[in-house]
């Protein structure tokens, strides 16, 4: 359904200087560095899969998605999405895929949400009946009816993301590319979006590729994970395999009022000690957070406790 074969995108980086002469010079100059944003990545995704595509900032996630959707031309290698070559038949592909960029809205900023939908309706040549069905269906699951008449710039981030997701679904695409759809959202908004995506994947058999920085997105949604770093695939497997590989540790930081001597507890992977401060990496599936809290309070009197969920950046670092 979606296939990448040795997909590569390299950029020439010219040292650029301001001014017309310099920009002319850099246009013709031979001085440049080549940076491989995506370096010979191959994968095959079947219908109905929900794939988490993760990696640190600048790993090449967005670049891959842009090549799969026909926005960028690969330097070498090829891609096929729904049997279509994204570069040769970009417009044909656009009718069959939905794209959401979490950082940038695809809606008309100053117009009410409904106006954006109507423009898209004309653009994708959607007939009146399907359009009414769309509005009803997405009011049921994303409650877009509440802010249809509001200009996009006045929406909250969560509402805007719901409107953007609905807009990406207006032509009922069978493949969805989601680039950080939960970025910056609060817990409730994230939960709404996850439920929506789950439903799209399970009841509507949409094939979804999702990039994210949020490990909870991955844990709750994705059956398969592809990890990339510096443009190369580091891991392509199930969520279980990812966990076995890196453990997905949760992090607890505790500050005691005096120096303590920590003991070994099962489920705790690593303890770092810095004076009277402890950083504890543990596996939530083996020891629950309350149980751990009870343990650590026996070591001394905690002055401050912070809990942190694992961060993709740190997870990837654990690979090395």
């Amino acid at each position: 359904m979606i296939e990448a074969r040795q997909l590569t995108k390299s950029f020439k980086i010219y040292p650029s200087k301001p001014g017309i002469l310099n920009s002319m010079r850099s246009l013709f100059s031979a001085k440049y560095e080549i940076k491989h944003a995506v370096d010979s990545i191959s994968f095959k995704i079947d219908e109905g899969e929900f794939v988490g595509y993760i990696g640190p900032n600048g790993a090449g996630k967005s670049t891959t998605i842009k090549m799969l959707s026909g926005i960028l031309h690969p330097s070498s290698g090829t891609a096929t999405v729904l049997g279509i070559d994204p570069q040769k038949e970009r417009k044909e592909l656009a009718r069959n895929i939905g794209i959401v960029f979490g950082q940038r809205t695809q809606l008309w900023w100053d117009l009410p949400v409904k106006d954006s939908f109507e423009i898209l309706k004309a653009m994708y040549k959607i007939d009146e009946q399907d359009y009414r069905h769309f509005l009803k269906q997405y009011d049921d699951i994303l409650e877009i009816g509440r802010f249809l008449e509001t200009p996009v710039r006045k929406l909250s981030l969560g509402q805007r993301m719901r409107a953007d997701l609905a807009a990406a679904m207006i032509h009922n695409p069978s493949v969805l590319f989601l680039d950080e759809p939960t970025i910056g959202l609060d817990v409730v908004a994230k939960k709404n979006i996850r439920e929506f995506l789950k439903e799209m994947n399970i009841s509507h058999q949409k094939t979804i590729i999702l990039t994210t920085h949020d490990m909870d997105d991955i844990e709750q949604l994705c059956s398969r994970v592809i990890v990339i770093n510096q443009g190369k695939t580091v891991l392509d497997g199930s969520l279980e395999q990812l966990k076995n590989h890196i453990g997905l540790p949760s992090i607890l930081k505790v500050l005691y009022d005096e120096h303590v001597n920590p003991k070994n507890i099962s489920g705790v992977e690593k303890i770092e000690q810095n004076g009277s401060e402890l950083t504890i990496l543990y596996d939530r599936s083996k020891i629950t957070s309350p149980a751990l809290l009870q343990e650590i309070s026996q070591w001394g009197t905690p002055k401050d406790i912070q809990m942190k969920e694992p961060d993709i950046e740190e997870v990837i670092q654990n690979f090395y």
Partner: protein
Amino acid sequence: MKLYIKLVSASIRSRMQYKMNFVFSMVSYGIVMMIDFLMLAAILNRFNEVKGWNLYEVGILYGISSVSLSLYRTVAPEIHEFEKYMIEGEFDSLLIRPVSPLVLLLSKNLDLSRIGGALQGMIIIALSLYHISHTHSITMLLIYLPVILVCGWIISFSLALVTATIAFWTQRIKDFQTFTLYAPFNAANYPMNIYPGWLKFIFFTVIPVAFINYVPMLFLLNKGGSIYYLLLPVLVALLFFYLASAFWNFGIRFYHSTGT
């Protein structure tokens, strides 16, 4: 076409969200237009004749060149401001639609305040024609004028499209626009025979502004041109538009996008 109208009306509604700003830009553009007009009058008064072209003949050249450029600026402000799509990576959002990005760009915005510039040019053409009508027959010129203006518009749009395409490599095009748009159109306000050979060569080839007004006027104002000169603007406009779109489609392959 239906989609174009829908998108354009959306853009005008967006603009109307900031009513004060819209009114203000109309008014300020009107003032700039007046000053420009007064300067032209001063220049035209100083010289009686430029290399065999009298005031009103130059006025016609000036008017055609300025109407052509203003029509382009009205219809294609997003092409003119194309570098923002490169710098902010906004071009992505045009490439995810089942419609050509050029159509989306053109329908994104209309700069109605530029119509003032076109009107100013029209007034100059009308005044000049009135004076010329004492000595020449202007029937042919009047009939052919709309064709000339459409060709001028297509040529200026094509030049702008070529310049915008350069942004796929350089990101920025503001500096290039001086050389490919502003300077040539300023030059085309006056007859081409006042320029040195190398400059004339440029204006007849890579930046073909000579065909917008000078070439057809050689015939229409009895300056020794043949009737075939009337065909040239049409041919050049079509050829140049074709080349510019081909270059644009080639350039899109080199679009870099930006990181998030």
